[in-house]
């Protein structure tokens, strides 16, 4: 079916009402640009935040179940009891090798790293700081947290008497690369370690507290020979971590927590941000639709004489309907094309202005092709749907009344 007549009329009518056409086109362009810009901005910033938070921590941590005080009741006596919570001591995961193996073979798990972590003191001369000893298998741990990324000095090359510590701790202890520090365990065992690397993990507290050593040494200092206090995991699908953690917890009976639980505040904030963005998108779509509809309603009223003449000359109701639907489609498609360009310009401008406090790039001007396609389809559909009402009004116009108007 040739739509030459409908296209010709649709375009010519739009050209005739040039000011109106440009105004509504500007409205659609702005709407599409806002949707793409905001979505891209929020997605990227959320991605950056998640990446920054999760790049220095495991996605899932497996720990031994908490010790609880068990109550012993006699069957025939009623006992009033105040149960005091039991303090949690450092314990090893029983049969941790088999659980680590289970995790390695679980689909969706990317890397597994056993850890022996616990409190010790780090000393240098008179300076003494309470720190967390991180006993790791370096090659496994690097698959979970890429510490090389955070090294500011030296190498992440931990031997039996070598350590890597945070820049803040180094400052507190007054030490530097190549210096030696003492690590003192709860039981008073002292171990000398040479600093082979300094890291800055973008977290002041961790920079003050983490002291990396080999797993075997940590096991000995923390008095859990052969044991590990936790197993760190990373996953392929970040947002599938919670389900995987629940599954592993059921299978192992261990306390298994995903980043989504340990960072629930962050996740809530991100989710609220997404809800806000969706609400903005919905309102923008409604406003754009109302804008298109109102301009076309005015256009139909202005053009009623012409519509009447066209109907008198033999234009069918369907042809008149299509003229105005096409106008909606033109607004939608042209608006989305211009909106995408405007969004890209805004993103470029924003990327050049918005930087992290340390000057690093927080944001790059990129357009997600899926988002562009989705926004264009939505704009096209909104254009056509918004035009439906005025188009039907035009098509149902009585030609005699229209010509007399």
């Amino acid at each position: 079916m040739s739509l030459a007549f409908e296209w010709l009329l649709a375009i010519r009518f739009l050209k005739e009402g040039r000011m109106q056409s440009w105004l509504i086109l500007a409205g659609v362009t702005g709407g599409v640009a806002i949707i793409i810009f905001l979505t891209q901005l929020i997605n990227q910033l959320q991605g950056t935040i998640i990446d920054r938070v999760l790049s220095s921590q495991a996605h899932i941590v497996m720990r031994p179940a908490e010790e609880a005080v068990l109550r012993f009741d006699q069957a025939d006596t009623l006992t009033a009891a105040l149960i005091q919570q039991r303090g949690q001591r450092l314990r090893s995961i029983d049969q941790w090798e088999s659980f680590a193996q289970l995790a390695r073979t679980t689909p969706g798990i990317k890397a597994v790293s056993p850890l022996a972590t616990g409190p010790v003191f780090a000393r240098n001369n008179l300076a003494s700081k309470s720190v967390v000893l991180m006993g790791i298998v370096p090659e496994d741990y690097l698959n979970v947290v890429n510490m090389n990324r955070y090294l500011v000095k030296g190498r992440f090359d931990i031997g039996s008497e070598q350590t890597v510590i945070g820049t803040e701790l180094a400052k507190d202890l007054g030490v530097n690369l190549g210096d030696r520090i003492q690590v003192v365990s709860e039981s008073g065992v002292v171990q000398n370690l040479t600093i082979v690397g300094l890291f800055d993990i973008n977290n002041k507290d961790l920079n003050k507290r983490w002291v990396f050593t080999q797993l075997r040494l940590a096991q000995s200092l923390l008095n859990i020979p052969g044991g590990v206090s936790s197993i760190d995991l990373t996953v392929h699908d970040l947002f599938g971590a919670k389900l995987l953690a629940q599954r592993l917890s059921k299978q192992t009976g261990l306390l298994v927590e995903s980043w989504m639980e340990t960072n629930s505040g962050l996740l809530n904030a991100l989710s609220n941000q997404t809800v806000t963005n969706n609400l903005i998108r919905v309102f923008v779509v409604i406003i754009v639709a109302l804008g298109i509809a109102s301009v076309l309603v005015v256009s139909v009223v202005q053009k009623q004489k012409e519509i009447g003449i066209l109907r008198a000359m033999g234009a069918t109701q369907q042809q008149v309907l299509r003229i105005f639907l096409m106008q909606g489609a033109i607004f939608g498609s042209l608006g989305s094309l211009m909106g995408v360009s405007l969004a890209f310009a805004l993103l470029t401008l924003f990327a050049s202005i918005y930087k992290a406090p340390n000057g690093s790039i927080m944001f790059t001007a990129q357009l997600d092709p899926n988002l562009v396609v989705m926004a264009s389809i939505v704009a096209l559909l909104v254009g056509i749907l918004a035009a439906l009402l005025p188009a039907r009004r035009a098509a149902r116009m009585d030609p005699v009344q229209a010509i007399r108007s």
Partner: protein
Amino acid sequence: MNPILQLKHIRKSYNIGTSIETEILHGIDIELSSGSFSALTGPSGSGKSTLLNIIGLLEPPTSGELIIAGQSTQNIGDDQLTKLRGLNIGFVFQFHHLLPAFNALENVMMPSIIHRHLERQAAEKRAQQLLGAVGLAQALYKKPNELSGGMQQRVAIARALMLNPPLVLADEPTGNLDTHSADEIFKLLEHINQTEGISFLIVTHDMQLARRCGQGFHLVDGQLTQSF
């Protein structure tokens, strides 16, 4: 000669079924033969425009039968009616009603574009011929607002002839023109009727012009009082 138009007992009422039901046309019978040149006269409010709208298939009669080009219009759908109108009836309105967004050539081509009657080049050629025939060969690309009233009416006449319809309805085609232009337009309609064999039904107040037509119908209060 075969009739191009037959009206049998056409009645038209408004506000049917209400206390203010009004009958505008009271059983009109008209027959126009092919190639005729007829006038429809009558005072204001006599029902001329309503009758013309019914003949032009723009509104349906309340009762009676209308046969155009041998086809009865009773019980046919809106799309078929629209097609029948587009292919068999050309309209010339008092205020020409050209499309302001299109130039003279495009206005004349419009019926062909609507009905996809001719290929674009062929349609353009015919439109040029028609505009040449009405004396507007030099004004093909002028917009309606660049033409005088008489020229606009000539464009409207050329547009009415685009699909070579057997019948042209002209509603006060000279009503908005000065005497000289009115005479020229009327002569043009006469010329087309004689050379092309197209039937014309012209609504006019001007009895002098009406008497120049071969056939005339006078309408008073919704009834044909005399034919001449």
